[in-house]
């Protein structure tokens, strides 16, 4: 069967390519800041937002976006103001999101979570043209923000004190990253699905860092792995008649396994070369 014969598959392919390109670029910062599960956490907070929308009769998707952004800000505030590690702050928001979602809907008169979900869950196979526009807008926002502030975020993740003595506003900068991730996750879950967007943020980065010796290298390789997983995973899901989200994620996990497996021999080989090129370490240059 020819894949591109179907419009919906063309759209799915474009969406997968965009997600595979953009999300690992956010993910590499999230991994460095030890917020690898932020994606799923934001998903749950967005659900709580929909619950709130039911309760107060506001529009669900914007409320969800606002809730996720607030969740992102709260994570950073908890981190900054109290002695709480990043993953722990995330866990608080995560469980708070689930509990809040159930409570609010229960208070709003017992609508089930299925009702919540319809406002939030997309799937690669059902991406509409409007969805593509949304994805594109968010992708551009993400790329622009990272181009401008990515270096600041990197320095911050390296060491907050060093960042501050370079004039970087630490709390604002880390909020920027988290809010950006929240935005990407909420739009992504609405269009291509939560599993896909939150996992493709992280898994390719985990694969890339097995082989890489630098942050830039990790980001670049992460994008490659993300792209490959997204496109090949979509094709495979069509061939094997399985849902595309999980297929892509499983493929990315296979990439991770492969990278981890080759990491050891590769490291060995690479450095034999380096060792050969560097006969007397630390002795060739003297003080400048």
């Amino acid at each position, binding site marked *: *069967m020819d894949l591109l014969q*179907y419009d*919906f598959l063309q759209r799915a392919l474009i969406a997968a390519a965009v997600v595979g390109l953009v999300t690992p670029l956010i993910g590499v910062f999230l991994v460095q800041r030890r917020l690898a599960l932020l994606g799923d956490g934001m998903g749950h907070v967005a659900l709580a937002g929909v619950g709130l929308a039911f309760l107060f009769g506001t529009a669900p998707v914007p409320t969800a976006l606002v809730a996720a952004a607030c969740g992102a800000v709260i994570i950073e505030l908890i981190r900054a103001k109290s002695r709480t590690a990043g993953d722990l702050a995330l866990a608080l928001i995560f469980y708070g999101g689930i509990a809040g*979602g159930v409570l609010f809907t229960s208070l709003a008169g017992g609508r*089930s979570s*299925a009702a919540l*979900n319809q406002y939030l869950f997309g799937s690669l*196979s*059902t991406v509409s043209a409007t969805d593509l526009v949304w994805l594109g807008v968010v992708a551009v926002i993400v790329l622009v923000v990272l181009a401008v502030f990515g270096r600041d975020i990197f320095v911050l993740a390296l060491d907050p004190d060093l960042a501050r003595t370079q004039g970087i506003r630490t709390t604002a900068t880390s909020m920027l990253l988290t809010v950006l991730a929240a935005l990407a996750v909420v739009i992504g879950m609405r269009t291509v699905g939560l599993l896909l967007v939150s996992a493709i943020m992280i898994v390719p980065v985990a694969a890339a860092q097995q082989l890489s010796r630098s942050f830039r290298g990790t980001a670049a390789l992460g994008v490659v792995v993300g792209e490959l997983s997204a496109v090949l995973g979509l094709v495979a899901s*069509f061939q094997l008649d399985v849902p595309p989200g999980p297929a892509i994620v499983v493929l990315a996990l296979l990439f991770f396994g492969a990278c981890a497996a080759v990491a050891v021999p590769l490291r060995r080989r690479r450095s034999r070369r380096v060792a050969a090129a560097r006969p007397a370490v630390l002795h060739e240059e003297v003080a400048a």
Partner: protein
Amino acid sequence: GSGTGSTGQAADGKPQVVAAFYPLEWAAEQVGGDLVDVTSLTAPGAEPHDLELTPQQVAAVSDADLVLYISEFQPAVDDAVAQNADSAVDVAADLEHLAAEAHSHEGEEGGDHAEEASYDPHVWLDPTNMAAIVTLVGEKLGAADPANASTYTANAEKAVAELGTLDAEWKAGTATCTNRDLVVSHEAFGYLAKRYGFEQVGVSGLSPEAEPSPARIAEVADFVRANGVTTIYFETLVDPKVAETVAAETGATTAVLDPLEGLAEGSSEDYLSVMRTNLETVKAGQGCS
């Protein structure tokens, strides 16, 4: 075990009936009228990941004189019933012909995208099944409250008659349909399709985690094109995106077919009126003029 507080009659002396979700609530109301208090657990299906009953609901289940539910439809209700209610009635299991139908249903669709449980629990979408349920409720209420047994029986018969009318309307309304393929985004309409001579073609399940496979969508799209299907149905409580995708792919239109797992808040509809709306939808969508 059963609740120690299961004293039978509540403060106002009326029998307490707890229905798991809307169609059963409707049945109990039709049969019980003003003689019973009917409450609904109104937690329609879906992600029990976060679905829990409140302790007061469980208390209501354990105190009730009659609990109406369908097993394997709502796990939380199953649990509550298993421990707390002597007076629970699984309306699907207690009716042998329904169970048998369910099994044959599984046999014919086995391996496909149909089941949420070991059988299709959406029995209430066939008015004749609903009639059987109403009759059963009449019997059970009569047993629980023998003083009013005859009223219950009379009420049940009246409701069965209304359901008969509904069935007749459906039969007549769908007799002339040019298209017999009912393409739905969630396969809740198996019994209905079978009764009125349609073939249900499902696109996917309803859960966010069970996203449809692209191959399946392509297959349905091909089917829609090949069979001249003009309308894809989605249900009220579930994301219409799947239906919309197939519709956009094929040039068909979408329409809402309500599976009646619950009523919208503040709705003045009831089982009969929703089923009649469904009938109009199907008539328009399947070319039954």
